[in-house]
């Protein structure tokens, strides 16, 4: 490889690029919404796949029937798992799966030809699913309000703001991790193996299966890995398990991870696309 290959291809200027994205985005979102509506069966199946929190809730209810576990009594478990369900449904993203398919069968080529970065296209795909997701999440949020109103956000305005920022951060963090995982498909035959492993590790260390507080010895690891910032952190803020001070510190850590993952995923993506073009199709 010579120096020319390493050089980034000339950009049309950042301002022009951004203006173009801004102009195209509403249309991309409209297409995305239409797609979600067209493939509503597929969408619904993805949503139904998120059923584990309910099983875990049933399990912990049986466990907590004879006394609380740490800070968690039965009602706290209910609040926690409803929160997990809501945050997960709002921020989850299975793009690595889609990317891996598109890279393998070459569909990505058409996306690369468009005068807009494919990652914006992917982002639009998933942002446009948000209206449908809100529809699905709202009954859960209602249930959360009814069962746990007294705990929610500790009725604190600062925590409300932190929650919103943390949800945006969680969405971005999941999005960039998916780009990173999906980009593996550029280098190996299929990114499905790493993706499956990611799902497993994420389930444990994000607080999806078990509240991190009661995870025991593995907790130390959970606190430093990025997974908690994808799910547990917004959920804990939502159900009032974090004080405003702690929440603010964690928000900083979350956004640090967002920037780090964003930078890394873009680098890997770029290296991958360069390889991909080398196949000639």
């Amino acid at each position, binding site marked *: 490889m010579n120096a020319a290959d390493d050089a980034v291809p000339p950009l049309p200027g950042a301002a022009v690029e951004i203006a173009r994205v801004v102009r195209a985005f509403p249309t991309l979102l409209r297409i995305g919404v239409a797609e979600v509506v067209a*493939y509503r069966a597929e969408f619904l199946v993805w949503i139904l796949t998120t059923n584990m929190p309910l099983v875990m809730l049933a399990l912990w209810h049986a*466990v907590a029937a004879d006394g609380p576990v740490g800070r968690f009594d039965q009602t706290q478990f209910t609040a926690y798992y409803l929160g997990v369900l809501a945050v997960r449904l709002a921020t989850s993203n299975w793009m690595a799966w889609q990317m891996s398919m598109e890279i393998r069968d070459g569909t990505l080529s058409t996306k690369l030809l468009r005068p807009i970065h494919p990652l914006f296209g992917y982002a639009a795909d998933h942002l446009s699913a948000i209206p449908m997701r809100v529809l699905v999440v709202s009954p859960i949020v209602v249930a959360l309000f009814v069962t746990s109103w007294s705990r929610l956000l500790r009725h604190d305005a600062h925590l409300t703001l932190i929650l919103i920022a943390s949800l945006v951060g969680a969405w971005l963090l999941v999005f960039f991790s998916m780009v990173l995982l999906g980009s593996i498909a550029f280098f190996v035959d299929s990114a499905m193996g790493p993706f499956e492993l990611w799902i497993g590790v994420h389930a444990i260390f994000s607080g999806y299966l078990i509240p991190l507080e009661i995870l025991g010895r593995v907790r130390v690891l959970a606190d430093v890995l990025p997974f908690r910032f994808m799910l547990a952190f917004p959920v804990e803020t939502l159900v009032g398990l974090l004080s405003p001070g702690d929440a603010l510190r964690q928000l900083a850590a979350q956004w640090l991870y967002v920037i780090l993952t964003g930078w890394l995923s873009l680098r890997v993506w770029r290296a991958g696309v360069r390889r991909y073009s080398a196949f000639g199709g």
Partner: protein
Amino acid sequence: MPSALQAPLGFATRYAGLFRVQMRMAMLAAMQYRVDFIVRGLIAFLWSALTLIPLLVVFGVRQQVAGWSFAEALVVVAWFMLLRAVLEGAVSPSLTAVVEHVRKGTLDFVLLKPADAQFLVSTAKFEPWRVVDIGGALILFGYAFGMMHRLPSIAQVVTGLVFLALAVLILYSIWILVVSAAFWVVKVDNLSYLFGSLFDVGRWPIDVLRGVWGGTLRLVFTFVFPVALMTTYPALALLGRLDAKTAALALGGGILFAVIARRVWRRALAMYTSASS
């Protein structure tokens, strides 16, 4: 040999031969990518370890959950691991390929072959690295019974094995039903994930669900999507806690499932319109 017997015997040997050939092809295909093979094996191992964490946490805070001790729950997890190895090693890879065939219209090539299409598609692909999971499951069985300071009797082991066969049959039948859905709605690649997530319930003894909605959820997972039949009942059999009547009913239910699945598959195949139309 009377000809009445010769036909089914010839049929059986023909399909046994076919099975061997299909198996060899699948193995060769899997061994071809050696790095992938090793990586997949490692991933399977890690997954098994992850399966245990929730169980360890729950039994870290309580001696008993819903009437199950840690060792007994471990037997359920071992069954779960064993079946997941079967599901992900032998059942789902082939059947995921069918969905792809239906979407692209390449199922034509399978249908043209002079053998039963369901047999051909069901034995097309294997993932040998799942053997790791089977090893893990056996170790868990050993460890669990070691903790209980006893061994299952011969009768209990036999019932357990019968239930294993039954569980595989049910698992396979449900998968056939899922795949048949592809003939109607085409875009069902992700149904396998839904299936997997529902199957995940099987890592817990079904009794943990007894408090939910007055036991409705427990009924759903026993009769509609019978995960309980696949993991909890075999575990009960091995622990000697299953009575004969329940066992007989479970067996009957499993066979009924298989018959229904076969019929639905035939129906679905009749719907298939191939690539050109």
